[in-house]
């Protein structure tokens, strides 16, 4: 996969990207240099020597990015296949397991699966009831989905960093990054969803005028302060999804980087750091899922509060 540690780290932090390259784009491909006998040439440190092969695209093409530069050049018209795939897979896992239990849910003596599910549901329900005082059929299921889904996505971190990318590489994928929450796209997708709900409920509860008034006349209730208020409030509003997404992303990304760094150690020494770090994540992974959920509830309950 990669020869030196710098490449190794970069390799592990690049998503498998499927996107559009414009026509006229020059693809730069690294190909190993071969001697006359057809054997790969290596330098003194044992790394294969490569040379750049350039090919110019005649039409714009949808393709898998062969390297980080290409992924970057694809711009917005690209999809992180690995992030999206794993997040959808984890979401389906959640939906499948919970709906299976829900379908068979009995008010009698619950089985093991139902116990587990009910513990989670009860926990989320309590948290919602403590924080959110309005009535909404959406908030509690939303909180449950966020908590379990984010937890499942985070928990992909427990899989040793080389296992899944190694398999993917063997299957021909140049890059593979499995933790969707260590991808800002993944966390921003969630938090923008929450943001839209904040806007929706603010307008629904307070009315468009009420919401505009709240933005204009808090914290300083004077017409001269309206521009300042607007600036402050809109900034505050936009900070919510950003902080939600970046907190989760930052935590997961940093943890991932540390796992990758540990993986650079000789294999017999890795467990010394790897095991404590993984155990530490027993705390971090549910905690981050919980924080995301609680902040979502808090933001939505703020959106439901009418100050007038």
């Amino acid at each position, binding site marked *: 996969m990669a020869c030196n540690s710098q490449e190794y780290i970069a390799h592990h932090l690049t*998503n498998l*990207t499927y*996107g559009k390259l414009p026509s006229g784009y020059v693809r730069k491909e690294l190909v190993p240099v071969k001697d006359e006998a057809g054997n790969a040439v290596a330098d003194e440190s044992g790394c294969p020597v490569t040379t750049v092969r350039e090919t110019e695209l005649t039409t714009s093409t949808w393709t898998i990015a062969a390297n980080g530069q290409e*992924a*970057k050049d*694809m*711009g*917005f*018209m*690209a*999809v*992180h296949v690995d*992030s*999206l795939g794993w*997040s*959808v897979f984890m*979401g389906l896992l*959640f*939906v499948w397991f*919970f*709906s299976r*239990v*829900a*379908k068979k*849910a*009995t*008010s*009698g003596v*619950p089985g093991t699966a*139902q116990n587990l*599910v*009910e513990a989670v*549901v*009860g926990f989320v*329900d309590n948290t919602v009831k403590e924080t959110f005082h309005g009535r909404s*059929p*959406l908030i*509690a*299921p*939303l909180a*449950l*989905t966020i908590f379990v*889904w984010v937890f499942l996505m985070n928990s992909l971190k427990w899989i040793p960093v080389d296992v899944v990318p190694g398999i993917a590489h063997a299957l021909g994928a140049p890059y593979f990054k499995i933790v*969707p929450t260590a*991808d*800002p*796209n*993944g966390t*921003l*997708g*969630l938090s*923008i*969803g929450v943001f839209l709900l904040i806007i929706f409920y603010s307008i629904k509860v307070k009315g468009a005028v009420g919401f505009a008034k709240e933005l204009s006349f808090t914290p300083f209730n004077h017409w001269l302060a309206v521009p300042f208020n607007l600036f402050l409030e809109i900034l505050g509003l936009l900070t919510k999804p950003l902080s939600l997404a970046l907190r989760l992303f930052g935590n997961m990304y940093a943890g991932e980087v540390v796992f990758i760094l540990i993986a650079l150690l000789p294999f017999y020494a890795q467990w010394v750091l790897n095991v404590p770090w993984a155990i530490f994540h027993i705390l971090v992974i549910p905690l981050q899922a919980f924080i995301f959920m609680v902040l979502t509830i808090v933001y939505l309950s703020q959106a439901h509060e009418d100050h007038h």
Partner: protein
Amino acid sequence: MNMNLTILGQMIAFAIFVWFCMKFVWPPLVAAMRERQEKIAEGLDAANRATRDLELAQEKAMNQMREGKEKAAEIIEQANKRANQIIDEAKSAARAEGARLVAAAQAEVEQEVNRAKEELRKQVSELAVAGAAKILGKSVDAAAHGDLLNTLADEL
């Protein structure tokens, strides 16, 4: 760190999962949990009621037992009284019967004695006649001396 369509994909997936959860996961689970809560509350209620019922029943049973004992004692007392009465009655009956028997026996004895006396009297008169006949050497006309004989017999 490229921002791209993944955000959109993630948002769509998020919306679908939340919708699904809201539709098919949350309501049945919460309903089941609430129903169980009610059942438990009912069960506890029933248990409380049962405890109270049990206390009442125990009290009732004790009362009945006490009543039963009292009644039994009363019955025993009555029975004792009745037994004494019966014994007394039997005693007096026996006494009366004894007296009656004694009286009857005495009457019979008296009758026997009278009959024996009569018999003796009759025999004495015959003996007297026979003796007199022997002494006089001739027969005594019983008819002629009947009055005499009777007088004699009466004197004996």
